[in-house]
């Protein structure tokens, strides 16, 4: 039986062999691997890129105090970006499943329509959920737009739900029972996270403090966005990446406030708009910043 970590190692090796840079998780809270700059910003522009990383993804509203065998506040996604998508991208993906020991002649695999959209990121794509013996194990998306910008090259985004995939391979009914490493279950490693974050997100998070933090992070991001000058010869050194971190903070705070039941009717759409506005502005600035680097070096 392959452990959780062995599966991750095998998949990383598989994608490294296919030209992916192996990145480590991004060090700011995110709701999905898509939000990391390695995806959100890198898919913009005409440069080729391939990257894979495991991203712990936080969804405060999905927390279940560690009681529910299938739902997690924080689950792990293996995120693979192939930009542009090679023509045999699905075959490569299927190869990765065989690499972790799934004999696809003996299992039922279907690609079912599932288009992806992230309103807070101004992003959407066309794709499928990958169903293996009735279980959704991955999301497969051809990005079309990100930050409101039509993409020059169409990347394929492969997102593996690692806990589910491992539970499938280990034939476990509960995520907490899967073996993380020999002698350690997933529960041994993560149960405390699930319990304590559920308590915090649902019961103890101080709403007014979170709102203050949201405003502060938004203020900082907005201040920076306003300072970005399209005409400045110095624009290459402008800190858009730190500005984007502030947006990620806002997004996570929004999710936490939402789980806490603190976002009222009138606020909800408005807050999504506020986050989206920042994300879209940064995507536009980033595209501009990356566009003419050599010309500026020459100056």
């Amino acid at each position, binding site marked *: 039986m392959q452990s959780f970590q062995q599966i991750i190692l095998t998949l990383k090796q598989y994608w490294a062999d296919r030209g992916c840079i192996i990145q480590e998780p991004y060090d700011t809270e995110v709701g999905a691997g898509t939000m990391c700059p390695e995806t959100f910003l890198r898919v913009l522009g005409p440069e080729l890129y391939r990257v894979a990383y495991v991203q712990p993804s936080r969804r405060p509203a999905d927390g279940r105090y560690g009681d*529910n*065998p*299938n*739902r997690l506040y924080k689950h792990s996604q293996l995120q693979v970006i192939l930009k*542009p*998508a090679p*023509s045999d991208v*699905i*075959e490569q993906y*299927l190869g990765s499943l065989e690499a972790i020991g799934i004999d*696809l*002649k*003996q*299992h*039922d*695999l*279907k*690609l*079912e*329509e599932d*288009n992806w959209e992230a309103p807070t990121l101004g992003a959407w*794509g*066309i794709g*499928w959920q990958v169903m*293996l*013996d*009735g*279980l959704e194990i991955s999301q497969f998306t*051809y990005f*079309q737009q990100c930050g409101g910008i*039509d*993409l*020059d*090259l*169409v990347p394929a985004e492969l997102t593996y739900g690692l806990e589910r995939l491992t539970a*499938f391979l280990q*034939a476990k*009914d509960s995520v907490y029972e899967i073996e993380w490493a020999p002698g350690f279950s997933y529960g041994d490693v993560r149960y405390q996270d699930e319990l304590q974050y559920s308590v915090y997100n649902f019961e103890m998070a101080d709403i007014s403090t979170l709102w203050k933090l949201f405003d502060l992070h938004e203020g900082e991001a907005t201040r920076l966005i306003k300072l970005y000058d399209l005409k400045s010869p110095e624009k290459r050194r402008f800190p858009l990446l730190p500005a984007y971190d502030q947006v990620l903070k806002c997004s996570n705070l929004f999710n936490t406030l939402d789980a806490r*039941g603190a*976002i*009222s*009717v*009138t606020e*909800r*759409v408005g807050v999504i708009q506020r986050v989206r506005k920042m994300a879209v502005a940064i995507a536009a600035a980033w595209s501009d910043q990356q566009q003419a680097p050599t010309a500026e070096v020459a100056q």
Partner: protein
Amino acid sequence: MSIPVVDVPDMTLDTETETLLELAEPERKEVGGQWSLPFLLEIGTEEIPDWMIPTALENLRLSFEKLEIPHESVRLDATPRRLVLRAEGLAARQPDSVERVLGPPKSAPPQAVAGFARKQGIAYLDDLKVESTPKGEYYTCLKKVPGRNTKDILAEALPGVILGLYFPKTMYWTGKGGPRFIRPIRWIVALLGPDIIPFELAGVRSGRLTSGHRRLGAREIAVTTADYERRLGDHGVVLSAEERRHRIRHGMAGIRIKPDDKLLETLVYLTECPMPIQGNFDPQFLELPEEVLITVMRHHQRYFSVQDAEGKLAPQFVAVMNIPSDPEGFVRRGNERVLRARFNDARFFWETDQKKPFAGRKQDLANVTFQAKLGSYLAKTERMMQLARELGGDAHAVRAAELSKIDLTTELVKEFTELQGVVGGLYARVQGESEPVWQAIYDHYKPESMEDAIPRNRTAQIVALADKLDTLRGCFGVGLIPTGSRDPFALRRAAQGVVRILIEGRFEISLFDFVGDDEALKAFFAERVRYYFKDIRGFAYDEINACMAASVGWGNLVDLAARLERVRALRASPDFEPLAAAFKRIANILQQAQDTGFTALPSGIDEALLEAGPERELYQEFRRIAGQPIENAISRLRPKIDLFFDKVLVNAPDPAVRQNRLTLLQTLLAEFSTIADFSEIVTNS
């Protein structure tokens, strides 16, 4: 038929084509001195959403027919990864044709005529003809247009045919500005007889290589038009949808399946090599409501559910795999495990939701947005309760309206949104609400389609009306009016539901009392009413126009339906059409008179001014039949009207007589326009 003049591209024979000629020799047959060739087009793609495939195939057929290439038969097939068109009996070359070319007018200077002849390659001016055309006399000549090679026509047209197929949502994949299709095109097979029809699309060159089942077949398989389907079969692909359907049905024979044709079609187009397998689940899950279990199986897992001999849900399911067998039981066990997890989730939600009394959650609706400008579902609930009262609802109806949206706050509906309403009804039932109340909550989204039944009882119908009317009034009030295919709030469905509930539920109320003075909404409803009576009930459009234009209006839809039935019956009478024509004449006369300042006599018809003969007779007949249903009057009225128009001049020289005569006609028209405005009837006379 004249063939448009197009530059014939150079006949570039690729070497591949030549070498393969002998290989495919047996599939050629000779018809009428021309080779009769089979045509094969396979568009190889990544997985196309199942529900789009049948429409795409129909479009492919139409686009091919539009090319007007004569052929004997066409056959279309598809799997998720291929759209296939095969035709038999194409000629290698299209017949030559002769075109008439119009030159300069006969009056043109000789240089122009000579220039025309030169351009058309005519050596002797005598070969030009002069023909008279609607514009005058012109020089013409006949030009022979050689028939083109079918292969060239197809090579030129197929890229446009393929990219022109309509799909509801398309993507690009080769880069910004690249071609758009439903999913990436990965290979194209295009053969005319033994030859490849050469073209390139989205970086893919057409050829003779198809691709097998993702895991059971080879990635590249050379085919001919003759062995194509068989070769695919060897590589794990059942090309015919009919055969896949049969395999699924056959594999389920002997199992008591809950019939579900829609699911069957989904699975037919979700697989290339389908095979059903039966699995089981723990009978203890049967404590959960059947609606929830079936939704999980059907919508989330695409399983058929199974019934026992009494028609109750059995602890079994049937999944359809995309591989031919499951000897080790991997697929069955995997699906059973997934279903167990799904059912566990559902049970967790079902139990969690009930920890808080259902009715006590009403205030939580303040946190659920209905629409940004229309506030929360709490606000909507209050409006629905008021509407339920106005619609004549009793305490049950108001209570049901009050509880109808609460299930939007439950975990179960957040997970299974398609069960909204149903879940609310189930919770209301287990928590002791009365039968009319829980049934009304359960049914209040109905009818969800034209085929769906309206809510089962009066209370439920009132709540359903209140919900839909509130949505329509609200959205129209803030300008969210559907345009073209954009209808995000499903307002057409809501309005259609209102129309059906009012008519089929026999609500003798005026729709206008609930629409207010919103003209756009009224027009929107008028469109739905027309659609209902025409497409669903089969009335003629002029009957509908006539009855809707009646002086009583069309707000009472039950009455409108009854009047339509009457007009349809009347139409069988031989007096009907002439009378309708006469009414139209009256309406025209009155319209013209009004335009020149006519107003009816306020005191009504002045008998003293009536002329003896046809006018007086018409009046007397009218007096006798006034107040009677038109069915009784029609045969008596018609001869009098005919005679009147035959003998009497409406526009009499004496203004007083004229005004009186017009007043008579107006009174007559008004009397019979309560059932319908007969001037709207389209007549032959």
